[in-house]
């Protein structure tokens, strides 16, 4: 939008959020966040899963209290959900026992309107959102898209100043999501909504560029604001437009440089044991290598391009790209992915050769794999309990990442025939000469 950004409606100042953990030290999900949601804008919060973006939205809505820092709503501190703030949920959060009309009216309960007045306002919200004719239906009778329309109607019926949207389109199929986005943008640009500003949480880069006036990119563990990107494009926006693609690529670059930096930083300390491995399966790794090697990419591609052609979102693509980078089958940088020489060899090889190559790379580039192998070789009986590695990893990683890293290394190690893992006994075993 070309208008001057207005005054801040919601102001988050030095907000931190930490959750208590049974193990003792708290888990910090958001660190030192400063965000202003201004009058007249759609602000995007973009990040990978685990970046705390949904928590941030809940803090802005008064649903979650920050551990430190303050939240100002129209200049006064926010204590709990306030009048004029409405939330649209990823899972729709409709009451299954209420009809569409009753669900929309439920949003008005707290205001204490008279019944006819509530009915009138609900009806007009339903008309606006395109739900006419569905009033008496129960949510379970509706398709996902229609359910989310009810979610929107229920939010705007209270005529909110601020609309907080938590990945509102991510539970929908591609076509339905696009229809709902366009419909919403039409209402927004034509000023048919009473709403002054919108906070949109998403992990879909194109969605953010399509809808937002300003995008905040969040980094993970703990969530911080990594970059702020203005989107000075007029609505309706064209996904194929050069400027549009430019912004998408810029965001990919920011995310890749963050990813590379964190891979590098983790690899350099504690003998590489602090390196969190991404949740990418061997099949996904092979698939991405093959896609990259094949036409039209011929060995290198923009991440945005691959994501578009595979209809992948950030959370789907990045872990696999990172795995390729860590295993040095490809190089990640500047929002691009480029196969290395051995990556090309991998793409051409048959099953057994692939396994051999994977084994070599695993031992060479993943310190944890080499470490497990060494321990198994040294120990009598050539086996080691899972807890042993678990506790080693937890010295450097948070529990969730340690758990995920172990799961990944088990998958990779099994494929590379580096070791065996017995889940019942929770035991790693060397593949001896006898049973190889």
């Amino acid at each position, binding site marked *: 939008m070309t208008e001057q950004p207005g005054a801040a409606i919601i102001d988050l100042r030095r907000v931190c959020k930490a959750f208590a953990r049974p193990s003792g030290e708290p888990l910090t999900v958001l660190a030192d966040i400063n965000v202003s949601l201004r009058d007249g804008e759609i602000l995007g919060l973009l990040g990978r899963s685990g970046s705390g973006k949904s928590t941030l939205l809940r803090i802005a809505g008064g649903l979650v209290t920050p551990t430190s820092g303050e939240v100002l709503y129209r200049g006064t501190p926010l204590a*709990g959900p306030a009048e004029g703030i409405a939330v649209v949920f990823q899972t729709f959060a409709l009451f299954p026992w209420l009809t569409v009309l009753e669900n929309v009216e439920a949003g008005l*309960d707290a205001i204490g309107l008279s019944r006819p007045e509530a009915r009138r306002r609900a009806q007009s919200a339903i008309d606006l959102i395109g739900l006419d004719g569905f009033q008496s239906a129960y949510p379970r009778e509706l398709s996902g898209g229609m359910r989310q329309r009810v979610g929107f109607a229920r939010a705007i019926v209270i005529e909110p100043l601020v609309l907080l949207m938590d990945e509102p389109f991510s539970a929908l199929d591609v076509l339905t999501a696009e229809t709902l986005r366009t419909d919403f943008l039409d209402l927004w640009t034509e000023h048919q909504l009473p709403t002054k500003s919108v906070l949109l949480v998403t992990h879909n880069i194109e969605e953010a560029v399509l809808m937002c006036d300003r995008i905040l990119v969040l980094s993970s563990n703990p969530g911080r604001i990594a970059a702020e990107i203005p989107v000075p494009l007029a609505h309706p926006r064209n996904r194929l437009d050069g400027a549009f693609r430019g912004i998408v690529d810029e965001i990919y670059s920011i995310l890749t440089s963050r990813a590379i930096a964190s891979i590098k930083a983790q690899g350099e300390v504690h003998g590489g044991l602090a390196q969190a491995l991404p949740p990418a399966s061997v099949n996904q790794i092979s698939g991405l290598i093959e896609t990259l090697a094949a036409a039209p990419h011929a060995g290198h591609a923009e991440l945005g391009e691959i994501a578009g052609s595979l209809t992948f979102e950030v959370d789907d693509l990045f872990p696999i790209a990172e795995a390729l980078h860590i295993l040095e089958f490809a190089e990640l940088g500047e929002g691009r992915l480029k196969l290395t020489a051995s990556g090309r060899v991998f793409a051409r090889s048959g099953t057994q050769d692939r396994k051999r190559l994977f084994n070599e790379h695993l031992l060479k580039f993943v310190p944890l794999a080499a470490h497990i192998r060494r321990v198994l070789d040294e120990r009598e009986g050539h086996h080691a309990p899972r807890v042993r590695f678990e506790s080693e990893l937890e010295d450097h990683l948070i529990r969730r990442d340690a758990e995920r890293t172990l799961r990944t290394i088990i998958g990779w190690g099994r494929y590379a025939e580096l070791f065996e893992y017995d889940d019942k006994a929770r035991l790693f075993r060397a593949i001896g000469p006898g049973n190889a």
Partner: protein
Amino acid sequence: MEHHAEVLGGGVWRQRIPNWRDLVIAILALALLILIGSGARQMVAPFVAAQQPEITLSPEVLPLYAVRTTIRMLAALVASLIFTFTYATLAAKSRRAEMVLIPLLDVLQSVPILGYLSFTVLFFVSLFPDTVLGPELAAIFAIFTSQAWNMAFSLYQSLRTVPQDLDEASRSFRFSAWQRFWRLEVPFAMPGLLWNMMMSMSGGWFFVVASEAIAVGDLQINLPGIGSYVARAIEERDLGAVAWAIVAMGATIFVYDQLLFRPLVAWADKFRVEQTAASIVPRAWVLDLFRRTRWLKRAGDAVGSATAIAARARLSLPSNVRALIAPLAPRPRVADLLWYGLVLAAMGYVVKTLLGFAGAELSWNDASIAFENGGLTMLRVAVLVALATVVWVPIGVAVGLRPRLAEKVQPAAQLLAAFPANLLFPIAVFLILRFDLAPKIWLSPLMILGTQWYILFNVIAGATAFPSDFREAAASFRIGGWRWWREVMLPGIFPYYVTGAITASGGAWNASIVSEAVSWGPTKLSASGLGAYIAEMTEAGDFPRIALGIAVMSMLVIATNRLLWRPLYAFAERRTRLD
């Protein structure tokens, strides 16, 4: 009030004329009112222990007896609902109350139901000394104790597991606590609560016989009803009258199932949270009839909108009052300490009193006798559950894999579970006497007679839900025989089986009091065991030993639940997850 949803056929004018369905409903309602009224009037009649109404065995009295029994059960159900809504809500809302109430509920539900009766009947009789209301209340209370606990647990569980997104939505709409309760929590809890109400109603029948013909020490009370009719029939050794009672009870169960529970189930279907359309929608002719009536539907809508208005009301303290109160509340830390102190003091007092009471009346010898008997009953329960498993698992699987057969067998199994098995006891006793069998062995099956069906219908449900692609995979790899059972089917139905077995064994414990000591006219058969022990002590009016027996039984039940069933259940849940 507008109704966008339904455009009824015909104009506004025609809607004022009642239709034939109104007439049917009106007759039904009037008949019910008259029956309930006449039954209720007799319940407050004067009571003199020596001059009680004679219980006759002629079948003509059975309809009225059935009505009086049903009224008692429904009264108990209402009481259970009130208890559920207060107790479970308090436990779910207050962390401090939860700490005390939930373990207490665990103990309460493991206490054998007849245990309550022997302790409370004197209290109720003394509360209303001159009317029959005292014994009536004692009977209702006994039935209540067989109904309330699982309902309270169900509501508590639901309140604790409200889906997070709905919880956040209600908070972001700033629902008051009252609105939240009626808009979110109660609807969410409704299907589970209703299912438990039906289970409770079935469970209640089992103890109707015991609660209507009360004999504690010297006090003998017979309240007109199906239960006392059966008791009388047993006394008179009249098998024909027992058969009449079985017929009357079957008819009663059928009637209230059709008139009450089916409509409720069909109505509550909308509270299911799963967002997929169900393939089978529960239907009930009474509800359909009601929804199609004209006048009554209008009256129903009026009630509906009145309750909707009540649920929409905020009913919370104005914010300035709350701001005034807030600083007065003690700091959470201090309040916690105060609370813990209070709970500890109360527990100390109770333990001290109990020890004093037990020390004066009981010896270690008594305890060892009670535990010996407990061991015997435990052995019986274990053997019987194992036997029922061997019989019903293969049959349940066979039925469950044939969907069309399962559709027919499933309701029958549920009806059998609802049928009070103790009505069949006289027949069993008759047979045991006739063929001169050993009571220690042949009385045992009576314990599981009523509860074995839970194993059957849970296994059927498990086999029905078993993914057909697994079955097809097993078939295509030609996995058959014992391997098929061990590797394919048994792991698939295991969680369902565990659910059924828990209910069956719990029920068997409870039934032991009734089934380990039975009589047929003057002949008394005892299988010994904890149930027989408690029954004998009740007859003798020996309160310290009744209490001891009950305490031992609760301990054993809680121990089996904690040490066997809960770990098994957790294991079943872990094993069958794919991720």
